């Protein structure tokens, strides 16, 4: 269901939700498990987002980190402290309530991924929405071809979802590669920019899709690596970041040229994004 089902002023009205779990990932990032009050169930796609409200402080868009197939009852938001709202959320405890509306955005086109090799490239906080995708793919692993996950972070301590990554690494059906920009021992994985990991990417390029989420600066370099691997532009999916306020394609903040990212995005194929001069 969509939480904001329309009606008298309902489109901007959040519903109440309860924090059922808090998991600290790094000094700036926590994962919050959230359950809707009154037994509501949030139906969403990987890489959709919700708008989180703390009344008196405001709203912010947060992408959903759990898989649509994980649980009926709750979903997870990975929240990094960057501003007032996120800082205030970090002060909350299990049992506290927040407002939620959404989900918004298009999400990853799972039907386009089915049956193909999948390359997933996550930079920094980009792993938050991509975790949803990775878990979704693992849930129905046999529907996809090879699955290669590349993860980059600034420092080892900044890596998100370490427990998930351990499980993924242990999972023979997917390949996971990590790199950090700066590291000291005992780090035993790669050091350097994420593009260095592409030498491990060996896919059926005509029949592969890529999903990329990371800081704005990352896209250009990563996309060019993927293109070098021979993937089609239309098979490379990016999830972009903009200031999102209303979520319903009205307030204008997330507009990139002619599209509203909150409605027409946040996932765009590189073919679409390339045409939008303000996108990359």
């Amino acid at each position: 269901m969509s939480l904001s089902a329309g009606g008298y002023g309902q489109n901007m009205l959040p519903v109440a939700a309860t924090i059922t779990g808090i998991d600290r990932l790094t000094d700036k990032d926590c994962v919050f498990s959230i359950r809707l009050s009154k037994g509501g169930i949030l139906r969403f796609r990987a890489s959709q987002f919700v708008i989180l409200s703390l009344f008196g402080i405001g709203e912010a868009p947060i992408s959903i980190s759990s898989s649509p197939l994980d649980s009926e009852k709750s979903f997870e938001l990975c929240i990094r402290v960057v501003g007032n709202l996120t800082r205030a959320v970090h002060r909350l405890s299990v049992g506290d309530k927040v407002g939620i509306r959404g989900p918004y955005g298009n999400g990853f086109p799972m039907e386009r991924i089915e049956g193909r090799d999948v390359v997933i490239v996550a930079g920094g906080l980009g792993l938050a929405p991509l975790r949803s995708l990775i878990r979704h793919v693992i849930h129905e692993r046999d529907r996809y071809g090879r699955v290669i996950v590349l993860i980059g972070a600034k420092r080892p301590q900044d890596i998100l979802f370490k427990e998930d990554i351990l499980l993924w690494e242990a999972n023979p059906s997917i390949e996971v590669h990590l790199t950090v920009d700066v590291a000291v021992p005992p780090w035993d994985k790669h050091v350097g920019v994420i593009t260095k990991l592409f030498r491990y990417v060996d896919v059926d390029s005509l029949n592969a899709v890529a999903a990329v989420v990371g800081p704005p600066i990352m896209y250009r370099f990563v996309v060019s690596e993927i293109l070098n691997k021979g993937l089609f532009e239309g098979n490379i999916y990016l999830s972009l970041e903009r200031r999102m306020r209303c979520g319903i394609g009205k307030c204008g903040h997330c507009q990139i040229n002619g599209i509203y990212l909150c409605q027409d995005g946040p996932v765009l194929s590189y073919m679409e994004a390339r045409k939008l001069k303000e996108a990359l």
Partner: protein
Amino acid sequence: MRPKIGVFSFTSCEGCQLQVLNLEDELLHLIEQVEFVNFREMMSEKGENYEIAFVEGSITRESEEGDLERIRNKAGILVAFGACAHIGGINVLKNVCPKDMWLTATYGRRDLFSDTIPVKRIKDVVDVDYVLPGCPIDKEEFLRFVQALVLEIEPRLPDYPVCVECRSRGNICLVEQGRWCLGSVTRAGCDAICPTYRDNCTGCRGLTEDPNIKSLFNILLEKGFTREQIESKFGLFNGLEGISGPGSTED
């Protein structure tokens, strides 16, 4: 939490303190949410256990620097309160004359009160955590500021210029009428009170984040003002020095 607040004043007209007392409708709620422990204009108690210090006025004497530093050391959060504290305000007009003249002009002799110094903003002496701009401060803004402190979130100032508020009120642009106005480079938050009452915006709230001063200068020159006149208008509240304190625009 019920923050403990101290209100202090240096060289100023104390109008910003008065603006707090002018919150007639909210004052009773306000004193429930915060504890004023030191507010000379309102109370006899002089508590030293304040966590948040609102500092009004500019620093114009050597001895005041020490006083200010003591406040800074005791306060977890120090707020420059009003234009005098924030950008120097009207006080800075004094700096254009040599020091000897200040004293002879006022007291007829130069040996008295000679510890007077060129006007400094609060941030010239100590670190400032937040700014509440304006001459005087906007009392609603003060209220929202205090609410933010109570809610333990970052107080935030508008990042747009006075024009936004002025136009939203349906005012006729003063510049369009051939008058000068600094509203286009001045931080909003005053609800454009001066242009609404058809007075020029003198920039008392300091500059916006990225003001196009060069263009405003050219526009006013084209309207027939001289460079000296324009500089003088900017100088009234020390506007060009008025780069604001911290305060981002994120959520």
